[in-house]
């Protein structure tokens, strides 16, 4: 009888204290370990730009590793480990919208990064906007919204954390004129998006550098054969060629076709793939006097932060050759992290407000150097990351970042 009573009292005590033990344990676990911040990415990891999309995902992950190694993002008393959820945008609005729906409504992310093609990015925004998720653009072909959509005062919940291609015109044409004093005429090759303002900007930049634009030729973004196009360009008898917005294969094909038809002058390739991709596609025998606007972390004089990213890649993905495109997603994550910590919040509305207030030069750290958010006069919102950019020159097998400039963005 006594034993039975003792047993019942023991069970009652246990049952009374069990919830307390569980709650205490939970609290200890939370207090001890960081929370998780899920960020979605939608990049074209299959198809013709698969190599680029994959490099972007690697770049995102590498920066997340760096932040998580340091204990995660510090937000108030909490620490947040970044966890990326990667989806395949396939460069298509349909696939990107489906991916965005999954990330926003199923995975409950607060931030989405992507895509490369503007129509696909627009499809993502249709999903993120009503859900209050911050959309971080990874590229835009049409910064002035002549035909497509991008950052603006009416789209405050988008930011573009990399400079647009047109911002490089002035520096590139000046470099071209200075380095090749015999070059007087240029043909500008542009994709056939209706980018009138961009073309006018290119012409003005060329003229300011003392160069005459003797022709503008348009190509279709989906072309795979540029031989006839190169013939059309060379009919203008230019001293130099300036090309913009090509995919990685396209830049290489245009260069190869021009060189095979006897063109020996300098070629500028803006908004296309990295110098390594151009060299791989065009071949070393055709890759002389080429100027590109993407960084090259293999340059011994590259900033230490760039080299660090490359080292991390080589340590984590030893069987995959390094791709310079990974620097841009790294910076996108790094800048976002800085904004989150400054805002002391993971609320996308707070974060974007703080990010758009970081307009003082040097407010943000990037692998390219100190940056800031700008573009109020141009876009109606400080939604564009402004940071230094290199002029990268390819001479045969050799690639070198020969000059740095910081674009001016009103």
């Amino acid at each position, binding site marked *: 009888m006594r034993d039975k009573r003792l047993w019942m009292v023991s069970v009652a005590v246990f049952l009374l204290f069990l919830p307390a033990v569980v709650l205490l344990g939970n609290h200890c676990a939370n207090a001890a370990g960081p929370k998780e911040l899920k960020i979605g990415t939608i990049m074209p990891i299959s198809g013709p730009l698969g190599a680029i999309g994959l490099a972007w995902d690697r770049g995102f992950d590498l920066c997340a590793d760096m932040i998580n190694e340091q204990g995660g993002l510090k937000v108030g008393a909490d620490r947040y480990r970044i966890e990326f959820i990667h989806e395949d945008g396939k460069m298509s609005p349909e696939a990107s919208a489906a991916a965005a729906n999954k990330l926003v409504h199923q995975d409950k992310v607060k931030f989405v990064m992507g895509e490369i093609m503007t129509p696909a990015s627009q499809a993502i925004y249709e999903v993120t906007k009503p859900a209050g998720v911050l959309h971080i653009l990874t590229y835009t072909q049409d910064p002035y919204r002549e035909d497509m959509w991008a950052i603006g005062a009416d789209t405050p919940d988008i930011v573009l954390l990399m400079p647009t291609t047109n911002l490089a015109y002035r520096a590139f044409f000046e470099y071209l004129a200075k380095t090749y004093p015999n070059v007087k005429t240029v043909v500008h090759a542009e994709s056939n998006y209706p980018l009138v303002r961009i073309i006018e900007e290119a012409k003005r930049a060329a003229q300011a550098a003392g160069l005459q634009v003797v022709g503008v030729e348009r190509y*279709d973004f989906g072309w795979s*054969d540029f*031989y*006839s196009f190169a013939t059309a360009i060379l009919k203008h008898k230019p001293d130099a060629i300036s090309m913009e917005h090509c995919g990685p294969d396209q830049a290489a094909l245009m260069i190869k076709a021009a060189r*095979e038809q*006897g063109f020996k002058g300098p070629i500028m390739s803006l908004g296309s793939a990295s110098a390594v991709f151009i060299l*791989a596609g065009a*071949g070393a025998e055709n890759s002389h006097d080429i100027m590109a606007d993407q960084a090259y972390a293999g340059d011994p004089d590259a900033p230490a932060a760039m080299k660090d990213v490359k080292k991390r890649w080589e340590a984590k993905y030893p069987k995959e050759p390094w791709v310079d495109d990974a620097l841009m997603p790294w910076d996108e994550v790094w800048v976002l992290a800085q904004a989150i910590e400054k805002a002391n919040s993971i609320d996308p509305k707070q974060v974007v407000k703080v990010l758009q207030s970081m307009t003082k030069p040097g407010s943000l750290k990037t692998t390219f150097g100190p940056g800031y958010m700008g573009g109020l006069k141009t876009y109606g919102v400080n939604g564009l990351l402004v940071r230094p950019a290199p002029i990268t020159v390819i001479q045969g097998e050799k690639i070198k970042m020969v000059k740095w400039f910081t674009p001016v963005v009103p």
Partner: protein
Amino acid sequence: MEIFGIPAASLVQSFINGLALGWIYILIAMGLSLVFGTMRILQFAHGEVYMLGAYAVYDFVVLHGLSFLAAMPLCMATGLILGLILERFFFRPLGGEFLPTIMIALGVMIVLQAMATVGFGVTPKSIPSFAPHAVEVLGLRLGSDRLIAVAVSIALILLLYLFLKRTKLGLALTAAAQHREASLLMGINPTHMSVAAMAIGSVMASVAGGLMGSIFPINPVMGGTALMKGLIIIILGGMGSLPGVVVGGLILGFIDGVAPVVSGAATAAIAPLFIVTIILVLRPQGLFGHE
């Protein structure tokens, strides 16, 4: 002078460039048609044989320093060995069963793509052009490498034609393609015919890959497009018809050359499929096929 808003010279140049590429597509389609005609299988891995032919040339020329001329026989040998392996170990055990063969071919396609990705990476590669200059003909500028590729393709197609029409083995192949049971009764060994068809088809595909690889960058997924073009050509021209394959290839080359310039890449991508649909509705056996 302008046609459809495009300078006439550009249009003519694009037309000729397209025709030049069309001859390389014909090589791919010939091989596919031969395999289908003899073995009655849709060799979905044919595009990957083409892709590996390109990578073989890349390997020999860029990584081992051979000349393009020395690399091409090695490229053909690569295609031959691959074709023989596929026939012996993947298709022959299935005994001509249609559906299992398709599944196996699709599986082989994926495996070969993955192997190329692992071996060479996803970054596009470039083979130095074997003729990196242009010739001017009647005011038009034509790539020497494309002209030579056309000459090689025509030579190979003529050789194939002569082989099929003038040699004992070729006649046996033709007979096996026309009527398998009758040829069996005539003492023609179907297994030997399958081996021959697969060998010849794979050699032609790998040569096409090698030629194309020196004109355009190569990547592990380039075989898919080649297979699609090959299928379109043999459907357009008619299964089992060599003249049909030639005409189909030239039609496709014309579309590929002119359509992107006139109406954009998107239209150019669907135009061949649209034309195939119309042909199949009006003439299901293709332009030169038999009913």
